[in-house]
């Protein structure tokens, strides 16, 4: 706040050229940093003393030792003879499995409910409001325990519910028919992803062309060609089989299909329903933030409703929606650590077991923090990039 205008000399000038403001600033910084350093040094020296007293060696050498802990439900192959490091990796994979699928499902469900709240249908909007209010005002951990108890109260495998043919819901979890995915199937899926990317690039180019000469060019032939025909051709050429594996009850358990363990399923339901309530509010406020005049103008132009939503309303609403949505994605990821309460082995739960087995508290917690900070930074980075893309270009 210094100004160029001549000002009266300060009353006290301690060190010549140093104005009192700079000196004060320096004093405060030295004081705060000094206190912070003193606290850390105090804690550090206590910790070192305590660790030597308890004969715990510091360092990450324990990661190479045999973990010996069972992990019931994991995406990656694991057996208790593997090292702690691998157990951690399995835990991270489990966390990501909940977080990624949870984010996708919560976004879909939350968007549907947010739009329902704005529906002209009184009943639908009321129901959506009740859903949002109820789920937001009850602690997630309580909801998680509730779902888990409900999962355990489901009938045994023999008497499993069959809402749809081939789908079983029992106290063993949710069993779905699935297509076994191996390397050949992955090739085809990879091709589809590649086709999708190519389609987006082509679509952008088509829009740019239309901007130039105003002639609309259909994009759907490219979509069909790249996203459907190309992977199909690859699939036929490689002779990949896409037979669905139907689960069946053999003895006391199910064989085949995809099994979602009760812990995983309960965690997923709890995270998705809870987060969807918050996402619904974000979507609602985003849509409401688009001025009425935009709707009216689009209507006056006689645009088709789907075109109007896609090209006029959504791009404006997204600007309001994306930043708070990022925090919800981060929250969902962090909240997946509640898994520890019902015994789903995510990275926090595995770190906690490691901590209890080895006493390496500092290292275990440092690993948890490193994992979550990395995931958080990754999500923020992606969402900030996306946000910058859709942000209003101010000239």
């Amino acid at each position: 706040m210094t100004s160029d205008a001549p000002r009266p000399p300060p009353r006290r000038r301690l060190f010549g050229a140093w104005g009192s403001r700079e000196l004060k600033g320096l004093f405060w910084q030295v004081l705060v940093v000094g206190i912070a350093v003193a606290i850390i040094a105090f804690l550090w020296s206590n910790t070192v003393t305590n660790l030597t007293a308890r004969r715990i060696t510091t360092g990450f050498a324990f990661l190479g030792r045999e973990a010996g802990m069972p992990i019931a439900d994991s995406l990656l192959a694991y057996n208790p003879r593997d090292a702690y490091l691998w157990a951690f990796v399995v835990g991270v994979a489990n966390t990501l499995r909940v977080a990624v699928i949870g984010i996708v499902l919560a976004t879909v469900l939350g968007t549907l409910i947010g739009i329902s709240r704005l529906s002209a249908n009184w009943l639908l909007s009321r129901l959506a409001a009740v859903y949002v209010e109820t789920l937001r005002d009850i602690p997630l951990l309580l909801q998680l325990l509730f779902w888990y108890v409900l999962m355990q109260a489901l009938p045994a495998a023999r008497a499993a519910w069959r809402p749809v043919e081939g789908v079983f819901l029992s106290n063993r979890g949710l069993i779905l028919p699935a297509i076994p995915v191996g390397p050949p199937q992955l090739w085809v899926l990879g091709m589809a992803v590649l086709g999708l990317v190519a389609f987006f690039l082509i679509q952008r180019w088509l829009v740019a062309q239309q901007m130039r000469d105003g002639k609309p060019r259909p994009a759907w032939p490219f979509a069909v060609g790249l996203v459907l025909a190309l992977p199909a051709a690859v699939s036929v050429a490689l002779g990949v089989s896409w037979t669905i594996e139907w689960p069946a009850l053999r003895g006391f358990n199910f064989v085949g299909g995809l099994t979602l363990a009760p812990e995983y399923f309960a965690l997923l339901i709890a995270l998705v329903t809870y987060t969807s309530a918050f996402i619904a509010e974000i979507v609602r406020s985003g849509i409401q933030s688009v001025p009425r005049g935009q709707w009216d103008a689009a209507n006056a132009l006689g645009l088709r409703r789907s075109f109007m939503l896609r090209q006029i309303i959504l791009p404006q609403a997204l600007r309001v929606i994306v930043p708070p949505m990022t925090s919800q994605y981060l929250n969902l990821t962090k909240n997946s650590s509640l898994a520890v309460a019902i015994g789903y082995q995510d990275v926090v739960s595995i770190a906690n077991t490691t901590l209890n087995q080895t006493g390496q508290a500092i290292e275990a917690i440092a690993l948890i923090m490193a994992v979550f900070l990395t995931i958080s930074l990754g999500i923020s980075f992606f969402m900030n990039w996306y946000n910058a893309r859709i942000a209003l270009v101010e000239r």
Partner: protein
Amino acid sequence: MTVITDIPDVPRAARRPQIGNPALRWLRTNLFSSIPNGILSVVLLAVLAKGIFSFVQWGIANAVWLTPANDSSACRAARGLGACWAIIPEKYRFILFGTYPFDEQWRPALSVVLFITLFYLSTRRALWRRELALLWIGALALISILMWGGVFGLSFVSQDRWGGLPVTLILATFGLAFGFPLGILVALGRRSKLPAIRSLSVLYVELIRGVPLVSLLFMASVMFPLFMPSGFNIDKLLRAQIAIILFAGAYLAEVIRGGLQAVPRGQYEAADALGLSYWRKHRLIVLPQAIRHVIPPLVNTFIAFFKDTSLVLIIGIFDLLTTAKTAIIDPAWQQFSVEVYIFVAAIYFVFCFAMSRYSRSLEATSGR
């Protein structure tokens, strides 16, 4: 996409010829404005009716409301058909007050009443004066006396026997009471022109917000003893309380920072022109405006934070949720956890719903 098509359909509905009967007109505009809407309404009504019918059957018609003390046979007989609300009168004192000595439970009960009165008074705008702070200090002192005892003829009750609702309220209230000034300091630090202070504040906020609360609580429960000089032992509840304060401080700091950014530059410049010192400038001019700007998001942070105190279950502190979970370990009542969870959910809901209603009324009346 069928749902999307009926967003702001009000004008179209209003164009329809008005029918005489107001009830019919209401139905027409709100439920049957178009054919897809009508189909949707019928389907929703059917689902809702089925849902309400089965809930009434389970929760009221076939429910067991009372049983003789510690006898769950009637509930077992009704299992699968009706709810066992009898578990609530059986267990409510344990759920609400944990293992606090049975004959002394009027003390935590009175503390809860005091807390609620205090919260209620704090929502009255007319009372937002300096006296309110004094009232808070007095009431919190009174609550400590009630909970601990040891003076005025009250028997001493050690902290590890506290449990249930008072513990939840204590964790939340003290978390806020200390987290709030911490948040203000950190928010000011983040906007400070002094690089060392700014980076320390950023580091603190980002570290705390980047990791799950669960890991902070683990840290409090396992690492605090390592941090402290040997022989120095602090209570488990206090350790969790410290973790919660640090957590609340980081989140509140970000909300307050938003408020600070909303204060016009002219206000800072005017304060500088008056020659106010940094602290007087913030205390008298900037902070009151900044906090007024962010009251609704602050209340929302309080709600989130009130719910998050339930996570202390993971490190074995007897808050409301932990007592609920413990109450159903009793073999005779083990199968009736859903009823207990509904009861506890209702308690949390009442607190959070009241807060969110209050936040909405503030938003409506703050005239911005």
